[in-house]
């Protein structure tokens, strides 16, 4: 061990390193290896007057590009004013209602839905139902749970509506307790069901095994704490037996969708369904309702873009509408379409999605439709998270789908706060979205549910005015 005192060495090393690093910062060099661009050192970045923010300039330019306001006003369709003449679909945070461009078609946005809500409020109607389709954004009853809660507290009704037989997110759903045996065979969009299996509206059809069961229990929350009116939705069956809370029921029916209605035995809070039949028959799910009011059915399917709804058979959709009529269909997609943030051509999405909308419109002629424009999605560009360029392009496609099919359109991106809002939702004091800058967390979903409720109620109140 050298006896020399090296107490000055740390100082020399640190100062020497510092000088070299500052020197390197002054050099203007850039080089890259393969795809990797080496970053320049900048030891003085904290001390510099920041140059005018280039990011902002492009953002402004982008938003002008994003603007959907047409310079030439389109004429009114079927005497209904075109909302595009008064609002910019890219920045308007309310619901826009389009008239069907088909001559003679009287379909307009949410007109039917708003009318039946009014009837419900006036006691002239018992139930109003919403089928809310979406991807992982609404899994576990996110958004829909909050929307349902608000609608039911204003218009009445209690219960979660449709719940599938099994679900990958059953344990995260806080609006119902849902457990099931593992021997259910789940056919769905992604596992190529055999031709003999008709997919249900949820995109799933469940075939029981020898000992299949499913159990639903209410949760301790307002309007969700007990079951009353229960309906089991199932496919074609020839006198198969199921036991519900130890009482036997026979299921029969030749239609693609059949329904068994029963009253919940008040002595038992939960509902236990056991299959006791001989041959496997298709099941879709169980619906929970209670009294007059609004029911929101959550139809979430992870990882889909909405195009998959094209696999639903027209017979099934029509029959479903007879067994469980819907007054409003909400289409909430986008997260899985924006898998490449810088992609701005979504014609590949528009074409099949148009077909989906065409057939749904045909199968559900009286039902109102609401297309929800994608939420903001940010991605990391150099050092910062910014709104993906694809967001604006996708919104344009979604808006066109709405206008071409006479549906209502709600721009969630604008309602969130527009350009850069996802960054605020992720990084704000109250965290509303996940670090993937795409998905909402529970609080964020509640906020979206509240925003949508507000937007719907605005339309409802407008429709009440003479």
């Amino acid at each position, binding site marked *: *061990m*050298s*006896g*020399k*005192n*090296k*107490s*000055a*060495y*740390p*100082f*020399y*090393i*640190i*100062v*020497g*390193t*510092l000088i*070299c*690093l500052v020197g*390197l910062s002054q050099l203007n060099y850039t080089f890259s290896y393969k795809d990797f661009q*080496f*970053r320049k*050192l900048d*030891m*003085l*970045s*904290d*001390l*510099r*007057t920041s140059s005018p923010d280039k990011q902002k300039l492009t953002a402004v330019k982008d938003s002008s590009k994003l603007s959907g306001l047409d310079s030439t006003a389109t004429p009114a369709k079927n005497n209904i004013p075109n909302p595009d003449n008064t609002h910019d679909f890219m920045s308007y945070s309310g619901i826009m209602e389009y008239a069907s461009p088909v001559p003679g078609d009287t379909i307009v946005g949410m007109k039917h839905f708003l009318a039946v809500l009014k009837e419900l409020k006036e006691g002239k109607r018992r139930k109003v139902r919403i089928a809310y389709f979406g991807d*992982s954004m609404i*899994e*576990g009853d996110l958004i829909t749970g909050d929307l349902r809660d608000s609608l039911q507290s204003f218009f009445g009704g209690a219960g979660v509506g449709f719940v599938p037989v099994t679900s*990958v*997110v059953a*344990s*995260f759903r806080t609006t119902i307790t849902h457990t099931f045996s593992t021997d259910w065979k789940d056919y769905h969009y992604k596992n190529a069901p055999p031709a003999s299996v008709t997919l249900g509206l949820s995109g799933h059809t469940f075939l029981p095994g020898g000992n299949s069961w499913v159990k639903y229990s209410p949760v301790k929350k307002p309007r969700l704490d007990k079951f009353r009116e229960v309906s089991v939705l199932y496919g074609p069956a020839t006198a198969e037996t199921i036991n519900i809370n130890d009482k036997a029921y026979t299921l029969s029916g030749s239609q693609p969708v059949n329904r068994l209605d029963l009253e919940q035995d008040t002595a038992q809070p939960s509902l236990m369904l056991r299959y006791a039949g001989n041959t496997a028959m298709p099941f879709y799910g169980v619906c929970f309702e209670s009294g007059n009011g609004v029911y929101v059915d959550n139809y979430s399917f992870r990882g889909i873009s909405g195009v998959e709804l094209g696999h639903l058979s027209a017979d099934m959709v029509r029959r479903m509408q007879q067994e469980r009529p819907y007054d409003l269909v909400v289409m909430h997609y986008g997260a899985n379409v924006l898998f490449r943030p810088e992609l701005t051509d979504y014609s590949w999405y528009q074409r099949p999605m148009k077909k989906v909308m065409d057939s749904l419109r045909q199968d559900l002629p009286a039902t109102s439709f609401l297309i929800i424009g994608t939420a903001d999605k940010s991605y990391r560009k150099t*050092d910062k998270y910014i709104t993906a360029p694809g967001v604006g392009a996708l919104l344009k496609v979604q808006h066109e789908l709405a206008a071409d099919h006479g549906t209502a359109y709600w721009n969630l991106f604008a309602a969130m706060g527009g350009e850069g809002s996802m960054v605020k939702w992720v990084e704000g004091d109250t965290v509303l979205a*996940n*670090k*993937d800058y795409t*998905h909402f*967390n529970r609080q964020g979903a509640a906020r979206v549910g509240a925003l949508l409720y507000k937007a719907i109620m605005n339309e409802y109140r407008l429709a009440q005015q003479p």
Partner: protein
Amino acid sequence: MININKLLSELLYDPKDPVLFNSAFFFYFFAMFLLCYLAVSKSKTARVWVYTVFSLFFFYKACGYYVGLVILSAIVDFNLSRWIHRTPSRTVKKSLLIFSILLNIGLLFYFKYTDFFIGIINDLSAGHISPLHLMLPIGISFYTFENLSYTIDVYRDEIKPVNNFMDYLFFLSFFPKLMMGPIVRAADFIPQISMPYRLNSEDMGKGMYLIMGGLFKKIVISDFIYQNFVQFIFDDPSKHTGLECLIGVYGYALVIYCDFSGYSDMALGIARWTGFKIPANFDSPYQSSSITEFWRRWHISLSSWLRDYLYIPLGGNRKGKVRQFINLALTMLIGGFWHGASWNFIFWGALHGTALAVDKVRIDWLKKKKTVITGWKATLLKVAGVLITFHFVCFCWVFFKASTFHDAWALIHQVMFDFQPGIAMELYNGYTAVFWIIILGFVLHFLPAKAEFSIERLLGRIPVAGSVAIMVTFIWLLVQVKSTQPMMPIYFQF
């Protein structure tokens, strides 16, 4: 363009940009400090003053005017300890000690736990007390414990109180360990103050190794894995497959270890370069083959503190088996709670406490049996022990890291029931760099200590110019990896 106002504003506390060791600011700060420190290195008093002033400034940069709390607690504990030492009466000694404990714990409780208890009261009685939303003064968990051990040691007559107030303030505010520990004992530290500032090659090599190793652990391993993978998983486990969740947990085991021990290593290295030896805080903890061993190698300064000032005073193992288990559980429960005000941390502590108690039974049983296993059986047993211990620790990390119990169970649910091993290749292609860094992290962790010594020795022999070249290259590489947004170290909230 260099802006002088910006330069001045850099010297002020900015809540949005608190100082970290791995920031450019710290580099300038450290250079300035070394210059002044070296200039006065001949005089002990001047050294103490320079170190203390720089430490307090560093503290101010990190948490604003909360720097006053350190000074205040130094004044109080310095005087209370002297009083305890001087007074002959046992009763007065005891009451002064209790007063000091209440004061220190009270301060910690006020800042750290008030909102937690307000939350409990609100939940229990449906009350509506509004939370205080206090900002936690950085380092308070560490210096509170340092104050306590000092006062208790004086009370037990194990050390003599410090005569010079500046020495005590210096000990408490010593900037290398201020924010993230380790918890330093006055008995270890105070005697070093009056030693002359001399460094040999061993000090130089060890210091440089610790500083560079710490930076590497923090930036290349911890931050990189966390930002690019682990944070997404813990954000919403239900949105990820079981395989992702499992890798996320393995990744988090590295993240928390490399973040915390990296910071500790930097503190040790900086201290070493300024003439202070602080005992190591981590000793490759995942190499442990039992949970008892794990706690001897993980956050050593905290576990030894809890042992000396909580477990042993509670009775330790001297009051029978049942009491020993209760003491263990209680110690770990409080240890868990120390990490933060939430049920998750308490549960985490309880899990570890229970495991330690179970492990005690195993150790006692082995002792009684007196059979010594050797050869390949011993190796097999050791490997199995390491694997089981590591997985138990990982299981506990799930609760430690998840923001709610709900999230923790969601993650475990995914691993158990939605594993989806089929996506492995897809996952690998999406996160190639992350997975290789995880592998690198674990490989480095299991390297024998001998490798470390050789690197240290080598670094100690290199001349200054060589050290500068190594440091510059190293930092240039770090910048390539580092994201510009500084990450808050996970242990900051303690």
